[in-house]
């Protein structure tokens, strides 16, 4: 029952993300557009490139979707609304997100096309850049919660949301979250103008539907994880908990999708260098900060 309710909400959420994405790129709010685009794509031919690596080509988009879904189901919308209650939920989230890089690597290598291959390897580079910025802020959150369970993480924020308790971690995680979803300005692997669609340039028809769906769920997952880890999840007055979760998630989605419109794309090697030379030291500072606050602060 929980699962059905959750999946329903997630489905609605993913659709809303699609509408918001359409709005952020075209500037027009068209609630039916994603559905129509999806159906029209479904009806189109799905081409397979010559001498492609069939298994990798097919598995890439599917793995993207699977990874996004599996990461999502470990995140709670409300106290009772969590399909899979893992004791190591936060770690599981990280684990599932690693497979996004695997999926893009597969999709980039699969079609034997130059643009896609460059895109795939660029994303792996990006992954090496953001990976530590995903796990380190999560560790800091777990320190405060004394648990890796996502429910406990939200509950630990009842006195003070993590966004205020550890703002540095929040910023790092948000930026890394955008990099995970290869949203602009981190869209090197799928850049339209630089690689003509890059990793997913060779996907057509139903395969493209799966790619876009995977991307939407991924954005939703990351937004919800920002909400759960830093914005106090379902916590909030007056409204029902699940509504709070969804509202916060929507706000994060809006931020994630619109920031990139006002920035030039980052080069992969910059993302790497900044991630390592700036991001990791800052993440360590964040952990130290949280550690000291936890020791001297009220028990």
């Amino acid at each position, binding site marked *: 029952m929980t699962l059905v309710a959750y999946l329903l909400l997630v489905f609605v959420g993913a659709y809303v993300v699609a509408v918001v994405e359409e709005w952020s790129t075209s500037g027009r709010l068209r609630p039916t557009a994603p559905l129509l685009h999806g159906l029209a794509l479904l009806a189109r031919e799905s081409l397979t490139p010559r001498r492609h690596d069939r298994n990798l080509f097919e598995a890439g988009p599917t793995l993207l979707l699977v990874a996004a879904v599996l990461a999502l189901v470990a995140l709670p919308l409300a106290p009772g609304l969590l399909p*899979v209650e893992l004791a190591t939920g936060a770690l599981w989230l990280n684990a599932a997100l690693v497979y996004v890089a695997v999926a893009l690597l597969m999709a980039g290598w699969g079609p*034997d096309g130059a643009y896609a291959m460059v895109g795939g390897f660029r994303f792996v580079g990006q992954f090496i850049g953001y990976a*530590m910025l995903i*796990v380190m802020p999560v560790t800091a959150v777990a320190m405060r919660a004394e648990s*890796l369970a996502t429910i406990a993480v939200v509950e630990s924020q009842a006195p003070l949301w993590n966004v205020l308790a550890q703002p540095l971690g929040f910023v790092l995680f948000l930026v890394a979250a955008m990099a995970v979803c290869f949203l602009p300005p981190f869209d090197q692997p799928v850049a339209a103008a630089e690689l003509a669609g890059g990793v997913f340039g*060779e996907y057509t028809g139903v395969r493209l539907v799966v790619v876009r769906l995977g991307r939407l769920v991924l954005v939703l997952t990351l937004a919800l994880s920002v909400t759960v880890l830093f914005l106090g999840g379902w916590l909030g007055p007056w409204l029902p908990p699940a509504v709070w979760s969804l509202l916060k998630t929507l706000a994060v989605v809006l931020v994630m999708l619109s920031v990139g419109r006002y920035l030039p794309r980052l080069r*992969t090697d910059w993302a790497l260098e900044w991630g390592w*030379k700036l991001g990791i030291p800052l993440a*360590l500072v964040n*952990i130290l900060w949280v550690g000291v606050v936890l020791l001297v602060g009220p028990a």
Partner: protein
Amino acid sequence: MSPLQQYALLFGMAVATVGFVAMLYLIARSFGRTVAEPAKDVPFTAGTLSRSPVWVRYHVRYYGFALLFLAFDMEMAYMYPWAVVYREVGMVALLDMGVFLAILFLGLVYGWSQAALRRQ
């Protein structure tokens, strides 16, 4: 639910997602096959037909980061359990992890100083 059932549920979700994708493929397949045409199966390269394979040895320019990442990443294996008991253990935990991270950061700084953290 017991943990094992939770894992079964996760596995079920993965299988269901794959099944969903397979279903989409089947629906799309029922709309007819792809018309086989010349050049349709050649990856797009901006209007030029480029038939040479691209699967050659690729020069990954960030291998300096990649090598350090392999080692540095392992720190997380220790940090998660540490984070969970941090409050319980207290000051000792902070010092222990402080020493550990300082050691690792030293490695990072060494790599940095040797120009590993840049485009090669």
